């Protein structure tokens, strides 16, 4: 039983509050990712769990056992994997992987058995006597993972483990990492700033910003039900529009700012005249042909002009300018079902369930910043 519980963890470096009261439960056997921009406190949180940093206050439990902040990393039964591998250049693969067992005084036969098991698991059997300079970056990271696992740890902490790999290796590696962790039935906490990586690899994701956790959920939860503008912006890609609630009946009607059109939302948690921010996923913006009588039949069509089209192979990114000057971007599957070009007048259609509403924040620029 190795649930990991963090209770109100705080940590400052001088005047900088790196972690501002983080509470989190990671379940036994779970693959959890701490996701956020640079400087959000995700790595500091991981290092506190590892024992590489001491928290200023708060509590950590591994299962029922409270972990004193003074317990050093090697006594916490964790394995760690780092972005820059931290492989000994003067040791071959076997010696690198067996190093952590030797340090912990594991007996010789046991080392033999464990090291060959984990070298096999990360597909390095053919390279046991190779030195780091003879290997590629992904192979070096495989050593890092085998070394972390060979300690026998039931908790694996991964600090941007794919950050130093080329984009094309990353895709394969992340699938492999998840399979490995699940196969060994260990608990993994993974730190990254890459939302796609987090969604691909995780059971649940904790989104962090400025030292706090904003939301914890499955990839689907975070995508469909973001609880803050920042989360809606950071996970996936959204358009944000400003407006005021005009009326509420079957749907909430929002009049967009600057004399913009009315859009409909299923969210009914607002009152008339509330200022709101509407958030619409780019892949949920549908483009319809501009035919006058269509507008009469369907009052949920918004007029706009296409002012840019980018071709991305599997899809197009189409920018549509509304009458109030707002730009809405649509991700459209390629080839599109209707013809359009830059300059075309079109309708866009937004389904009310896909228009999420947030109260207008004190500082919109801050909410929409990615850092």
């Amino acid at each position, binding site marked *: 039983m190795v649930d990991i519980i963090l209770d109100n963890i705080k940590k400052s470096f001088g005047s900088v509050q790196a972690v501002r009261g983080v509470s989190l439960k990671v379940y036994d056997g779970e693959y959890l990712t701490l996701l956020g921009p*640079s400087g959000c406190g995700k790595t500091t949180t991981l290092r506190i769990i590892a024992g590489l940093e001491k928290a200023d206050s708060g509590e950590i439990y591994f299962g029922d056992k409270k972990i004193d902040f003074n317990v050093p990393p090697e006594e916490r039964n964790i394995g760690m994997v780092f972005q820059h591998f931290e492989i000994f250049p003067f040791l071959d693969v076997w010696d690198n992987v067996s190093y952590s067992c030797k340090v912990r005084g594991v007996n010789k036969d046991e080392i033999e058995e464990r090291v060959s098991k984990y070298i096999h698991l990360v597909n390095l059997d053919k390279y046991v006597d190779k030195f780091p300079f003879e290997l590629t970056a992904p192979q070096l990271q495989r050593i890092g993972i085998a070394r972390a696992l060979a300690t026998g740890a039931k908790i694996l902490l991964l600090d941007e483990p794919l950050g130093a790999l080329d984009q094309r290796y990353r895709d394969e590696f992340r699938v492999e990492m998840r399979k490995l962790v699940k196969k060994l039935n260990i608990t993994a906490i993974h730190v990254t700033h*890459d939302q796609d990586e987090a969604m*691909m690899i995780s059971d649940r994701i904790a989104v962090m910003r400025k030292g706090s956790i904003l939301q914890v959920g499955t990839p*689907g939860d975070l995508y469909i039900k973001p609880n803050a503008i920042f989360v809606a912006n950071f996970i996936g890609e959204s358009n944000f529009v400003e407006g005021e609630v005009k009326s509420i009946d079957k749907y909430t009607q929002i009049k967009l700012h600057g004399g913009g059109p009315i859009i409909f939302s299923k969210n009914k948690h607002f009152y008339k005249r509330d200022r709101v921010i509407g958030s619409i996923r780019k*892949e949920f913006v549908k483009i319809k042909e501009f035919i006058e009588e269509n507008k009469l039949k369907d009052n949920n069509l918004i007029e706009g002009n296409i002012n840019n089209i980018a071709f991305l192979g599997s899809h197009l990114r189409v920018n549509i300018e509304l009458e109030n000057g707002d730009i809405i971007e649509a991700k459209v599957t*390629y080839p599109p079902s209707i013809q359009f070009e830059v300059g075309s007048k079109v309708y866009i259609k937004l389904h009310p369930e896909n228009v999420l509403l947030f109260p207008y924040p004190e500082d919109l620029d801050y909410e929409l*910043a*990615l*850092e």
Partner: protein
Amino acid sequence: MTEIRLENINIKDSLYNINLQINSKEYLTICGPTGAGKTSTLKIIAGLLKPDSGRVYFDGEDMTDKEPEERGIGMVFEHSNYALFPHLTVEKNVGYSPRVLEGKTLKESRQLINYMLELVLLQNRPKAYPHELSGGMKQRVALARAMMASSSTNLILLDEPLSALDAKIRLALRYELMNLVKKLGLTCIHVTQNTEEALMVSDRIAIIHKGQIIQVGTPREIYETPKNLFVCRFISTSNFLEGNIIDIVEKGSYILLSNGKKILVSNKNFPIGSKVVIAIRAENIKISRNKKIETQNVLFGTVETSKFVSGNSIEEVRLTSGELFTLKRHATKAWFKEGEEVAIYFSPDRTLLFPYPKEGLEKAIDVF
């Protein structure tokens, strides 16, 4: 206004007969895997690397033997801080290039710097230090500095300018960069290994592999008519089937796979008997639980992984014939469970056809 032409450029064991023309005000991306020769090509244009043979022309003038500082080029490098001087303010960073301000009075220099800052919308922040700026602002300072250095040519070289940034910021800055380059009327050569970035920002893309330019074209041309299997796989996740053409009909060609299955593709350019490879992009394959589905080109398999990533469902399906296929669709959640048996199918006109490669399929699609 500068047009760049590379003519038969060679560097031993690294670049082979590179011919490339970049038009004035064009945004061209040199895209390829690590070690393909992208940065070497860029350095040859900048004058930071001398070719063993071949010539470099700017507007018809031979620049091959000119030093970098005589070429009037601005560069932006891969670095999270864009190699800005951390101890200098925005205006000092922009005005750093001493040669540009040579012979100018203090007033003229100030005017020029202010003008550059206005272009990149930083006229209000001349006294700020890099650490006080957002990622986008830093990028604009680097661009303003590069433009100062390139005021005679309007030629900007970008070496993986976004790769050191957080994933999310990278996406936002792509737009900003592209719009700025276009607005300012610059000629831009951008090096990246990120194919999505290349598709998004470029007028044209040059695909480079093992020191050779394989194909140059618009994003659409590269995606829709890749010249070979490498370009096909490199530009977008694709799946491959090997077979032989057995019949050509009005709708296209029938291909017999080794497992006895027949596939119809629209392409009719190969004679009967040819050994070919069919490529199907991940986004052009449909999936169904209904295994009696009546449509063209149905294959069967088991879902190995099913993931939801930012608006896309991504499945890996192990076909009964052994191949692992990747499928990608816009979706709001992962709909298929691991272990589920499914039918997958694709339209004959959403396929690409290639001659079977001499080096074997595996080698031809090795994009690493």
